[in-house]
């Protein structure tokens, strides 16, 4: 097995404690950090396909992502300065009045596992906080989570606030949560609806790859 194959297998099987050493071995053997990065991204692609096909459990996918991050920590300092190691940035929060975070936390984990940088604003996030976050972090995607029929209306208010603040055109808005439907997303002018965390990650990955 080549050194880069070894790194790929360790990422795919989630062996996070062993990946760092394997990446270093590959570097010491003269393999370029960009090649190692491409190899790890390809491994995560395999993991993502297996997960979508129902052949992997979520913890296995997250362990693979963690293994990749361990490997990234070794090669990041060696990559060309400014070279992106992620495919894009998203910002996620549970809307004002809503304290539920399971779904939002899963979205964050799943997005990171497909190599999206995620800014997590937490729970009970106001429109103003979202707008401030957009201006500071400049994400391409903003995710709004709401679990209650009372707080889902806040998603509509927040999107309107984005328009009034002049930031709407710079982002795509993705919404989700237990009572949320595609019909609701269409009604309030969201760009996307995700039925679950995996769907949110897949939608975001597809969008970021298209721009």
């Amino acid at each position, binding site marked *: 097995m080549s050194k880069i194959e070894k790194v790929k297998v360790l990422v795919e099987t989630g062996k996070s404690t062993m990946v760092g050493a394997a990446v270093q071995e590959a570097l010491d053997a003269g393999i370029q950090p960009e090649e190692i990065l491409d190899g790890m991204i390809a491994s995560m692609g395999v993991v993502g396909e297996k997960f979508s096909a129902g052949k992997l459990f979520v913890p296995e996918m997250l362990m693979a992502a963690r293994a990749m991050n361990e490997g990234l920590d070794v090669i990041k300092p060696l990559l060309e300065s400014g070279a992106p190691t992620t495919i894009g940035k998203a910002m996620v929060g549970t809307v004002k009045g809503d304290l539920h975070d399971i779904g939002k936390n899963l979205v964050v984990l799943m997005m990171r596992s497909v190599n999206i940088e995620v800014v997590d604003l937490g729970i009970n996030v106001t429109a103003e906080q979202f707008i401030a976050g957009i201006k500071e972090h400049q994400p391409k995607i903003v995710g709004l989570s709401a679990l209650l029929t009372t707080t889902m*209306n806040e998603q509509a208010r927040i999107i309107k606030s984005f328009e009034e603040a002049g930031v709407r055109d710079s982002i795509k808005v993705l919404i989700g949560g237990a009572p949320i439907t595609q019909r609701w997303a269409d009604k309030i002018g969201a760009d996307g609806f995700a039925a*679950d*965390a995996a769907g949110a990650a897949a939608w975001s990955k597809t969008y970021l790859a298209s721009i």
Partner: protein
Amino acid sequence: MKKRIKYNVMIDSELSFFKGEIERLLIERGVHLDHDEMLKDLAELGCKVDMDAREVKFTKELIDKAVKAVPEKFTLYSPSGQTDLVFPNPEGKFYTRTNTGAPKYLDIKGDTHYAKPEEVEEWFKLTNALENIDFVALPSTSGEYVPGDAVDVYTLEKALKYSAKHIWIQPYESANVKYLIDMSVAAAGGLEELQKKPIVSFIACSVPCLKFTHMDAEIMYQCAKAGIPVQPCSLPTAGANVPVTAQGTAFVACAEVMAMIVMLELLHPGLPVIATPLLFSMDMMTTYTLQANTEITIARSIAMELFENGYNIRAHSYGSGSDSLTLDAQNFIERTSLTDSMALSAASVLGGAGQLETAKTNSPIQLIIDNEIFGIAQRLRRGLDIDAEAINSEEIFACLDQDPSFSYLLSAHTSRHFMNPHRPDMFNRDGVAHFEADGCKTLTDKALDKYHEIMNAEETYVLAADKFAEVEKVLKLAHEALVK
């Protein structure tokens, strides 16, 4: 005969261990409580409070004092006065309640949509008529039809007007709690009347692990002050916000509910409470939250045992429901399995009648069928006597069956017992010929017939006009205060 059929999951040493660890958690780790007034009151009552961190820890003495204060006997009253719920149930039966908080409604035409106000009215007309449904919770009327800031208030208005049965209230905002209580006071005819005969009780929930938001602390605080019963709830999801094991999930849920009971009894000794751990699990492949996982069902039984057997505190959990979105085979397998498991557990209350899609959808047809399933489960729970009369010693030892003219159909013993077997209202109990003559009706067809029968009946409960006028006054104030 044992008083009723009941199984235990835990052996005595496990129950002891479980109790010990729950109390140790409340003593050593404590809980986070986002309510300054309540923290101050708890500090004055002897709890160890850190106001800056908003944390409260309890002592063994306080836990014991609180448990001792929980009333062993109490009644949850019905607005109509016809279906008061005496705890413990004098016949050893369980009580049942409908699903709470579902935003969606699967109507009789098969369309699923956000719940409409007229469907909330329909729900209460149905529950009034169903003999095995004992109390009701509030559906979640959509913010498309009522103000989103006051969904709970507007839905309670419907419940107080139309429900003949006890109402379990789930507030959605801190500021709404006061108005929900005031509406209930108005419906009862005054605070003293409500305290004497509580026609409502409240839900207060934890946020795992061991945290209480201002809203849920406010519910506990206001109910303790007003003397209104509370059914404290924990809603953990295994693998998502609590340990992935069913046992770990039950552990956190029971600790959270116990913390609420301790706080409530310290604030208002003798307040009726019903421990309500409602457990979920996260599917490790889809990340979907599930209600019907088998291990979690066992964990609910564990939680019931902890409170009922361990502390003599009445306990309540999901006893119906499915993760299926429709009335298919998965739905019926899951809910019947759950109902039977919980009916034979230590539970005093089985909840969730009428729910589909992991409690997110209410279905009137399912509600009617759940009424049937509960009837069967109630019978199952009662078991059977073994004695001379039951086995018909008299006729058998007298060799009556050796007489060619003898028929069991006409025997004295049969005349005493032929009505004993439980006979579900809507099940097929006949052969092909009659089945076909009746139109080959399935269970759901018959449930639909029953739906029409109930909805077309003229007689229905309505709150007295003078009391409803008082409820409306509070609703108006609530709207002015809450709706932005």
